């Protein structure tokens, strides 16, 4: 994907946000999809709407367990505020949606397929460094990411080769490479880092930050389960 096409996509995306300057998760995931990064299949329920009895969730694939999340550019720490409900069965879905709508009356709700995976949770991030400009990060993701600090940075843009070096620096690298039977497509992950870096060049102005956390290897592809874009 060319740099100008990413630049155009970012511009268009900026002007499409429902709350200017404050993208919600659904919108941030849309941005990632547009540069070729997969996210779970999902349905976005706008503020005040309710879950359609059958129609909506059919896009989530065969019936199974779902993730229900509050989805608003105004709520950055949704887990801490009780805004994420995991492992919701089809039967309990309407009640779960209603519960979040009651707690967060002015926010939308995102219903997603519950992605199955067993390998490592990875974080890919980007930010603007005051000395060196846009930078990209990869590391051990999930809720303990700040505890382990197993991360590696490079400046953006960043070549795929360099992205491979970043991965090789990580303590969790062996878990991508067959450690205890765990393996994943390393080159495809490096490609995702490369694209995130490209995004960083156009997206990340002073003070802006991107977190893709976690991104996991599931059914032969990397899927970004949660994405946060903070603009200023």
């Amino acid at each position: 994907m060319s740099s100008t096409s990413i630049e155009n996509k970012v511009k268009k995306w900026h002007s499409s946000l429902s709350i200017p300057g404050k993208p919600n998760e659904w919108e941030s995931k849309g941005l990632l999809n547009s540069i070729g990064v997969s996210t779970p299949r999902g349905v976005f329920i706008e503020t005040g709407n309710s879950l359609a009895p059958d129609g909506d969730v059919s896009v989530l694939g065969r019936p199974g367990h779902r993730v229900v999340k509050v989805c608003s550019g105004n709520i950055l720490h949704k887990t801490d505020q009780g805004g994420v409900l995991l492992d919701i069965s089809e039967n309990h879905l309407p009640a779960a949606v209603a519960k979040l709508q009651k707690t967060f009356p002015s926010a939308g709700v995102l219903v997603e397929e519950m992605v199955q995976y067993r390998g490592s949770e990875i974080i890919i991030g980007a930010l603007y460094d005051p000395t060196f400009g846009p930078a990209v990060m990869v590391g051990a993701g999930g809720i303990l990411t700040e505890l382990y600090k197993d991360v590696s940075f490079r400046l953006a843009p960043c070549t795929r080769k360099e992205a491979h070096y970043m991965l090789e620096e990580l303590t969790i690298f062996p878990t991508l490479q067959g450690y205890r039977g765990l393996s994943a497509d390393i080159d495809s992950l490096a490609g995702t880092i490369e694209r995130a870096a490209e995004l960083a060049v156009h997206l990340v102005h002073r003070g802006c930050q991107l977190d893709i956390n976690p991104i996991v290897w599931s059914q032969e592809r990397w899927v970004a389960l949660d994405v946060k874009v903070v603009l200023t």
Partner: protein
Amino acid sequence: MNTSGSDLKKIHKLLNPESVAVVGASNSKGKVGNIIFEGLSRCKARLYPVNPHEDVIAGYKTYPQIADLPDTIDVAVVTVRAEQAVEIAEQCGRNNIDNIIVVAGGFAETGERGKALEARLKAIPDRYGSRILGPNSLGVFVPENNFDTIFVEHGDRSLAEGGGIAFISQSGSVGVEALGLASNTGFPLRAFVGLGNKIDLNELDFLKFFGADDKTDCLALYIENVEQGRKFLEEAKKVSSRKAVIALKAGRTPTGATAVSSHTGKLAGSDRVVSGAFRQYGIQRAFDDEELCDAAKALSYLPPAQGNRVAVITGAGGFGVMCADYIETDSPRARLQMAELSDSTISRIQEKAPPFASCHNPVDLTAGMTNEMFINTLEALLEDAGVDIIVCITFFAPHSITDKLIDQMATAINDSKKPVMVFTEYGPFTDTYLKEFYKKGMIGFPSLTRTVKAVRFLVERGRILSALEEEA
């Protein structure tokens, strides 16, 4: 200002002046202007003391002010206090002096008044085309031509032989203290530059200059803040394809003014981005002054390692075991491994080794080792294709080892393209031995951890070079 070709010529003059004015030169012993002027009398440049209160200083005719000087001046060293220094620097500018070194502190770091002075100083380069080093700069020291404006002890006599390392330091004292210590055991110095407050000349200018300088084979930098971040990195990458660039970046700054609400922002601080950026652009990062000097010395003197397999020769089992432990400890700089010696290497070592020796890696020749055994082992390891780098743990205590070993080792090592590092345990004679090694073209350290750290720098350098070659 950006460095152009004509600016590189000016920097050349700054380091190799034919004529130098010292403003504030003095006859009073102990005054900065006295120490600097006396130091300069050892260089070949024409010297002009400037001081309105003196007629003659150290036998030189003294001029009341810059405008009275009878010659074109390449460098003016301004040794007077901040307020006067600005005035003098402006006079230097008006009189077309190419380079001005401002020694005084007391500028932006002291508050509003100092900031105003610094602003006046800053205007000079654009207005007159003069380049300014400092303020708050210890100046420069170039062993090759004895040009030395540093007024504190910095091992200048030991460093006088010169060498290939350009040492560029934002902090004068970190620079000279490090050099002073390193000089005890020999340090190949091309030039020292104290950047100070960097209102004009900064690390990027000197990176360009020494990058292009044929007599420089390694650049060592101490920096607290990087000016023009991306340009600096891009220039460093160009330089690092030809010579090693090592940087000690001290001082961690907050990520930015805005609130950090992402994991990425919290994990970054500023420091992890620096490490990543340095790695990406071929800069080797040192974390303290000892590491900076050790790495520079090793990288200037020794070839880069072609791989990460290390062989160890020792006469003392314990140090061999510890060394193997250090080698196999993980490090983000470079993973090392103990080399597996070939059968022919092992039998070659066995032929001459004492009966209780262990001829596998680490090779332990025991206290019964002789010069001949040691050299035989060293030569076998140098020729083993499975060994990339060798650590010699050498003691000169056993009666069977004589000082002649140093010459024999030097001959074997200097004929080889494989790096060899020597560790000798610290004791009363160590510095003498280390200096002796250095004179003969070998690198030694008085601590095992320092030795293995330096090994990692050579392996990292090898990896940087092959990545750059692949890219080209």
